[in-house]
């Protein structure tokens, strides 16, 4: 098959633009996993029903995620020469109303969120232009959640259809891959990626061009490139979105990388728990093959194809040597390094493994050049990073920010601060490999070195916000139980060190802890960190070490005073009813599963501590804040 030419690509671009910016109304429903979880599939079906019922000539399409997961289902509507209008929290009834308004050439004001007049999309000079108008509707980048973001990787997520290669090409896709393959040498590509300063987005932050250079230099008849899409950190779903919303961006990045390194075979190792991402990737790969962008190319000798390998449910398979073992058909247990995969990896051949987001940065780096890319970020951390901002924060979702932004800006300006006025206590970055950073350090810049100095890591991008009702001992116990469960068991420090550390934390959380155990925790944490075989064990103690460093007072309260200051650890708290606030409304009695709460109507109620199982149902039900946690 002949590889596509730039001329042919231009023809497809024209075709794709007719689909993306048609001469009629186009309704795009956010159908990423978050949108679907919020009910977007029903909304999508209603749009189809209404269009059919009213015999309307509209384009109704799927799109990916705009990042503001807390406002899903998000629907965007465009018509020729007018701004794109985005609707928020769209229900099926809203969908019917939107269609009805469309028929009257109006907007459905109740759920209007923002508009887009034009969007710079970096991959092509002209950007995406919708039209001007609707002066009363705020622009996308005026919305507080989006204001400080810089969507480079997520530039077209939530706008184009993830199941249409034509739309991807319409907004500039694959043009850079073709230009690069036909006019640049591998060394020239490596130089651009190197000068851009791209560092691996999977967590370790290793300079991408340096790693590629090692594989490029290794003499071998066969070289592999792998996309690590195992994304196992609880609370992190950046890669999931990147694959669900813009799978061709990943493919284009891998095509450029394969050419630079000299590989003819690419593998996307994606966790089985991402069925939608797998489905969209499969569609995208088929489409790319049909256009000659993948496969055997007789025209210029660059043969490259990608196939998918699915994980089998092990967090440790996100570690590169365990991932390789898994692809080879063995159990996912890491192997000692050296040798490093760039020298000897899959089947003993030079292999480059990079995270989804690292590959996704490649097309835009080649499009805009190293100088442009490195103008964003700090001196050591260039570009943007997508974070999953989740937890006890008002506005949750995926945010793409320039490196160097402060934690304070992300959590308060983008995230909107705590929920229901609660005080934010800490933010956990880097998942179970990272640490808890206290609020006092929120002026820190978000970059690799700065986060590492706190004892945490950037990680793959998970950012879990914690407030005054989060017990730091409890949250450490949670992360440690996760890593202990996911430990492959090959080396003793991780296998048994984590087991014993978890045992100590369990003792502390039920009031059986001793002060000497804090030193034991520290000692064991340090040995597990330095003696473990792979990154899982080497980083698993980080939550313990950071919480001991910044929240030692909470540990001491648990041990010395047998108290849980945040009111979480069940053995150490008790519920009681404040006589002054209680109105005797009897609501707590109705929800209590053990009959521990009692009282006469309109009289002060009480809780029998012997019967109370601390389920906190009364605490959550009481409208008068009369239930107190001690």
């Amino acid at each position: 098959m002949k590889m596509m030419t730039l001329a042919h690509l231009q023809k497809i671009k024209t075709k794709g633009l007719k689909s993306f910016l048609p001469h009629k109304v186009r309704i795009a429903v956010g159908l990423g996993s978050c949108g679907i979880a919020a009910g977007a599939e029903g909304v999508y079906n209603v749009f189809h029903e209404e269009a059919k019922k009213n015999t309307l000539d509209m384009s109704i399409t799927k799109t990916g995620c705009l990042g503001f997961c807390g406002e899903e289902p998000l629907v965007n509507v465009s018509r020729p020469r007018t701004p794109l209008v985005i609707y928020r929290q769209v229900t099926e009834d809203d969908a019917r109303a939107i269609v009805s308004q469309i028929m009257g050439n109006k907007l459905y004001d109740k759920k209007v969120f923002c508009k887009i007049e034009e969007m710079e999309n970096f991959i092509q000079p002209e950007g995406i232009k919708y039209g001007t108008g609707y002066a009363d509707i705020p622009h996308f980048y005026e919305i507080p959640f989006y204001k400080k973001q810089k969507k480079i990787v997520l530039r077209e997520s939530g706008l184009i259809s993830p199941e249409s290669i034509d739309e991807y090409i319409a907004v500039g896709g694959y043009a850079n891959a073709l230009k690069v393959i036909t006019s640049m040498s591998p060394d020239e590509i490596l130089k651009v990626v190197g000068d851009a300063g791209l560092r691996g987005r999977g967590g370790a932050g290793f300079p991408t061009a340096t790693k590629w250079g090692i594989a490029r230099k290794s003499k071998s008849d066969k070289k592999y490139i792998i996309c690590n899409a195992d994304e196992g950190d609880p609370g992190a779903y950046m890669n999931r979105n990147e694959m669900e919303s813009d799978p061709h961006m990943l493919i284009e990045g891998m095509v450029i990388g394969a050419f630079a390194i000299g590989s003819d075979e690419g593998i996307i190792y994606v966790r089985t728990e991402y069925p939608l991402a797998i489905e969209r990737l499969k569609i995208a790969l088929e489409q790319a093959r049909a256009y000659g962008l993948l496969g055997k190319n007789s025209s210029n000798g660059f043969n490259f194809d990608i196939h998918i390998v699915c994980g089998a449910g092990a967090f440790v398979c996100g570690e590169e040597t365990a991932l390789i073992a898994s692809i080879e058909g063995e159990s996912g247990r890491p192997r000692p390094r050296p040798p490093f995969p760039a020298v000897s990896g899959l089947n003993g051949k030079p292999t480059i493994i990079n995270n989804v987001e690292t590959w996704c940065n490649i097309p835009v780096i080649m499009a805009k050049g190293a100088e442009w890319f490195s103008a964003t970020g700090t001196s050591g951390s260039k570009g943007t990073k997508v974070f999953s901002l989740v937890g006890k924060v008002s506005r949750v979702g995926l945010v793409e920010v320039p490196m160097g932004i402060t934690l304070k800006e992300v959590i308060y300006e983008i995230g909107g601060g705590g929920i229901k006025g609660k005080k934010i206590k800490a933010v956990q970055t880097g998942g179970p490999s990272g640490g808890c950073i206290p609020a006092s350090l929120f002026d820190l810049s978000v970059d690799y070195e700065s986060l590492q100095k706190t004892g945490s890591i950037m990680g793959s991008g998970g950012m879990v916000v914690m407030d005054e009702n989060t017990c730091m001992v409890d949250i450490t116990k949670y992360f440690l139980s996760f890593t202990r469960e996911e430990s492959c068991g090959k080396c003793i420090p991780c296998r048994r060190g984590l087991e014993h550390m978890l045992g100590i934390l369990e003792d502390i959380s039920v009031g059986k802890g001793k002060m000497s155990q804090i030193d034991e925790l520290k000692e064991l944490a340090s040995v597990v960190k330095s003696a473990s075989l792979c990154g899982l064990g080497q980083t698993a103690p980080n939550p313990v070490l950071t919480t001991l460093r910044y929240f030692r007072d909470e540990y001491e309260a648990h041990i010395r005073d047998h108290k849980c200051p945040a009111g979480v650890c069940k053995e150490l708290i008790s519920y009681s009813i404040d006589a002054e606030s209680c109105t005797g409304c009897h609501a707590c009695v109705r929800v209590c599963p053990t009959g521990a709460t009692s009282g006469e109507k309109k009289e002060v109620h009480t809780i029998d501590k012997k019967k109370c199982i601390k389920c906190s149902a009364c605490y959550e039900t009481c409208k008068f804040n009369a239930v107190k946690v001690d």
Partner: protein
Amino acid sequence: MATIVINGKKHEAREGEIAFQVLKREGIDIPSLCYLEGLSPYGSCRLCMVEVKAGGRPGLTTSCNLTASEGLEIETETPQVVQVRKVLLELYLAEAPGSKKIQELAKKYGVATTRFTHIDTSAKGDRCVLCGLCVRVCGEILNVGAIHYAGRGTRTSINTPWYETSSVCIGCGACEYVCPADAIDIVDQDDERIMETWHKTTLKLKECAESMKRFATERVVDIVYAKNQELLKDLKDLSPDARRRKKAAQFIFKPKDK
């Protein structure tokens, strides 16, 4: 040849040698459980850790997969190495409280007791340290692969498929031979070899045609002689002792009959 520095002194390393081999050859003390000459480095026991001072990534690393290249400088007794070793041995005592060999190893480095009580060894018994030597010997050297790691994390054990008797085990006993913790039990009873640890997998022992001694399993003998059928035909049914006697007899000078 490369010159490396160990604990401040220069040592010569042969082409392709790894640091651990140099340490052993030069008589420098370094503990290990999962290293065996002839097997590729595995890095599971973590006991052979040394501190790299120069000529490589600085910090603690296992010496069993560290190439002894020119300019490498390592230390085997820094405070950090000693401390990590001690804590690891404490973990091993908790891992294998029933293994005398492990207790002796720990004692050698000054570790007699363990603080680590929150350890549950029920999945694999109280002697195995999960070093993987038995697995690798059975798989990589004997090419049988009757046993492997089963389960994950703290529920890991060395086991047969489905935890049943093995249909491929040849009863060579290499697993028991290499085990550094004496965790594998094999019993020869009458004309049978019982692999107690592998769910009592039982194999028939071969009897020597001359001495009636039972010297190996029938399976092992069949495998060995399948490789050299013609050459060793006349020795097939003899024990090693009987074979020696027979071969030696060929070289005894016999005076000519008068």
